[in-house]
């Protein structure tokens, strides 16, 4: 286990930080705070570059576009806002969700945003056009959507109803896997073959995408009631996940 060292710490002064996101090449960093603001940072020099204000409630998630010209964010004010990075002005405001929007992602070309909400729906927003309604709404989940991952042709959603759903756009199939525990976060490995699921039973589970079989279960941290995220390093060798009690945990996959 390699030691993780803190490179930099910066004071956001945003009360609770709901999400921290790097942009596409890792040169910028976004923090979503409970103070209804999004802040754009230069993480190397701990510089605050811009503050984006306009949400009416806590900002729960944000994502930068592939050309780093736009930011899309979602909030518990039920709205999704598309921001212009340079001017700091909201370009669009989508109000299609009936409840807090918990997670949001751009697709690869940043032409479409996918948001998941407490109203159990996943909505596709067309960022290119001026359309205000969602292009498509997925209503398969029976409880809150906790996370979304978008690849070039797949959308992975995890939900509090203990299901992980993978929507394959090419095949036109929806694969729903019952996990048995509340899934707080799901991510895909770099090779796109496995899910890594953070479950509420203080485990991280590794699933095979094709067969739906469990490959490994990682324990040792505590999740409590937190919505802990996980990620995998670029070599697919380690999983990093959050923990409620101690520090960030690192797991060896294979």
């Amino acid at each position, binding site marked *: 286990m390699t030691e993780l060292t803190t490179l930099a710490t910066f004071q956001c002064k945003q009360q609770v930080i709901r999400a921290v996101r790097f942009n596409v090449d890792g040169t910028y960093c976004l923090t979503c705070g409970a103070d209804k603001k999004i802040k754009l940072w230069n993480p190397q020099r701990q510089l605050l570059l811009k503050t984006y204000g306009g949400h009416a409630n806590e900002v729960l998630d944000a994502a930068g576009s592939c050309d780093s010209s736009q930011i899309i964010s979602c909030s518990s004010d039920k709205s999704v806002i598309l921001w212009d990075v340079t001017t700091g002005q909201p370009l669009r405001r989508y109000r299609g969700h009936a409840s807090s929007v918990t997670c949001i992602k751009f697709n690869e*070309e940043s032409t479409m945003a996918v948001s998941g909400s407490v109203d159990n729906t996943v909505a596709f927003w067309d960022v290119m056009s001026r359309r205000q309604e969602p292009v*498509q709404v997925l209503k398969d989940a029976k*409880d809150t959507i906790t996370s979304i991952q978008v690849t*070039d042709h797949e959308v992975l959603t995890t939900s509090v109803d203990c299901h992980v759903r993978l929507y394959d756009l090419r095949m*036109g199939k929806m694969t729903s896997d*019952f996990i048995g525990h509340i899934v707080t976060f799901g991510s895909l490995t770099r090779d796109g073959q496995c899910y890594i699921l953070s479950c509420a039973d203080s485990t991280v589970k590794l699933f095979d995408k094709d067969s739906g079989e469990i490959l490994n279960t990682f324990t040792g941290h505590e999740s409590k009631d937190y919505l802990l995220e996980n990620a995998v390093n670029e070599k697919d060798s380690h999983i990093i996940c959050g923990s409620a009690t101690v520090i960030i945990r690192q797991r060896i996959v294979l």
Partner: protein
Amino acid sequence: MSDADSDEEVLVQYGTPLEPYEEDDVPTKRKYQQPADQYAVDAHGRRRFHGAFTGGFSAGFGNTVGTPEGWTPTTFKSSRAEKAQFSGQRPEDFMDEEDRGEFGIAPQVLQTQNDFSGQKRQRRPQYHDGPIPGEPVLQQLVRAVHETAAVRMLRAMGWREGQGTGERLSSKGKKKAREQHKVYGCYVPPELRQNQEPQDQQDEEEDSSDSEFDFDTLFAPDDYEPYLLSRKNDRFGLGYSGLSRHSVLGNLVGEYGSDAGSSRSHLVMKDKGRKVNIRGQAFGVGAFEADDDDIYATEDMSHYDFTIGGPAAKPERKAVQNKSGNVLPGFVKASKPLPPVPSYPAPALPRDYTPAVAGARRTRFEPTAHKERDQGLGRHELTAKARGELLGEETPLPTPVTVTPTNIQPNTQTDKPKDPITSLLGRNVNFTSEKDKELNYISIKDSGKEITKVFKPFVGNPAKQARYERYCEDKTALERDGDMDKLSEWEREREIVEFEQAAKLYKPLTGLMGDRFTHAAQPDDALNPLSAVSKSVNHGLATPQQLQAAQQGLYGVTTRVVTDWRPDGLVCKRFNVPEIGGRSEQKKEDKPKVSYSIFSYLESSVHDKDSFAKEQGNFSGSKSIPTAPKTQPNDKTNTPIEATSSKDDTIIQATTSKENNLQTSGFTKRLTVAEIFLKESEQNKNQGAEVTETINKFDKMDLYKSIFLSDSEEEEDLTKKNEVSDFIETPKNVERNTSPPRGIFANIDFDELNAWRRTDNTKKEETKKPENTILEDKQEKSEPVEEMYGPKIPENLQNRLKPEVKTQTSIEIGSSSSEDSWVDANELKSKKKKKKSKKHKSKHKKKSKSKKKDK
């Protein structure tokens, strides 16, 4: 035409008519501009700008300096006799006259300088700090007086201060206007006015002295005098100003006098040449008047008549006014007292009254008129006892029994509730009525069926509502329902459609909301808010097997569910993923292209092909349906009906009209194909195995058709030719409008045209494809038919060959599988033919005319 002419004579047109819109033109919102409007012109109507740049400056005669020479160059000349005069050029030399006008860039009008106009908001003046600080005294004294824009405009129109606005009046009219001006508020009653009129006349006579010389001059009207309300500062009654104690000479006496300068004598002597008229306040009741019995009147100088000479005519008249002493001037005392305003006490409401909107529901989609109530609110109005009785607990327990609201099931509520509630509360509390036990709220548990009870779209018609409810329970119930027999078939279909829509309309809400709510895992314990909330896990739609498998860690097949999911087209586009199943554009193509042609509106009832065909089917198809449908191999149930119906039509119509051969060829093919298909299928009725073969054959034929039948000219000719010989056999064009020709077709004799055409065709025609000809008697045709290729048969031979041809020609047109596309092709073809036939017509016309001329 004569009508139109007379219209033009009668009507008067104003303005320029707009250009009529073209048929397929989209009207723009741009204002219509005539070319002439687009030039800028000067005051004289001359075009202002011209030259190379139409919109730019231009110099030249007409709108330059004003000289005929325009810009003539000057040379410097100086001689001993004439010294050159140095003339400096001023900007005005280069200006047009308009520029110096009122609205030009350098107006030459006397006007107040900006500082004095008072128009602009005064800048706060800055005072220099001299020995005397502050605003200069002179500036305080002298203020720039400014006028409002309205005043300036009025001035420009010739108004002067002190005058009124409006048309100039003669002195008589002015006087009249003045009289009218005096009426404020109420209008003078007519009898009073009549009383006044003679007085006016008299006044006029009096004034005639000064109006004699200017009877034909006009005067400006009087200025408007605002009716100023003066403050009341005495304690007299309203409208009464007490006799002020002026002395005759005008000095106030006693308490009234406050300022000597302001007082005027009430007795004014006017010398108008003839007699001295003295007017004054309360001057009228003379000392010798009989009816002066005002005992409270105080003796005053003004009581005396000061009129010198002349009869006392006026006092009499004024007495009329004075009789009604305490009435405002201009008012009369009412002869009858006003009836007192009646006041009625509010009626006592019955005990069980619930306020509701008057009247029943106006539309069936209106929500129920019953007062919507929150479930929770109603609950609080019930006492514990009432709730207990609701639940059927006979004896209320000594300890307060609490009934949690979740236990109140809607069904048990409605079982026997009415009487206890109403008796306890004296009015309807929660549930609307006894008869229909309907719920005002939707319980989450039983959505679906219960909903239909809540929403009653057809309340107005109880029988229909009953049918609707039955329909909601079982969609097929209506078909075998005895109640429906009363309705006609059409009505029944209509109603089913209506029910479908209503069910659709009222369901989705629950469907939508159902997704967003889950059942409470625990009873909502209203009593104990501090009870710990146990965590519950929502397993979604997981089956028990899945739960078990997940518990054992046996993930895989059991826990996985793969369902079809169709991404939206736009989503696919944005993700750069090919859309599944290709693009769904076929639907759009299926829509008929709407043509906005006049002809499509000539016959409104028939312009829809489908409806027309359907009607045709209704008329004639009923006889032949029973034989047909069973024999059809698969999806071709429609064609035989059409075919048979059209056959019937031909029999009916062929005798009556002969003009059907212009556009029929396309449809002829289609229908005959169907007929033959019918025949064949009848043959194959017993031989089930051969059915597939015929289908194959038809598919081949389809290919054949697509290759050969597209060139329509020859076919057209052929069919025409055929119709000459035996047009009784040709089925009629289904779409054909059989109504007598009208409009521009009214005077065209189609029969003649067709007759001419037939003969013409027979002469001209050379090409024939026998495989396209229509069989004369398909009834007898039994053999599988063959195609005949090769060169066309000469016409003279054709007649001889005919019997053979009849037996040999094959019409294996019409495949079953690609009927739709085939129809489209036909339509296309028929369209083409229509165009052609139009052309033909015009040619025929010309030719027929020339023929007539020849004759």
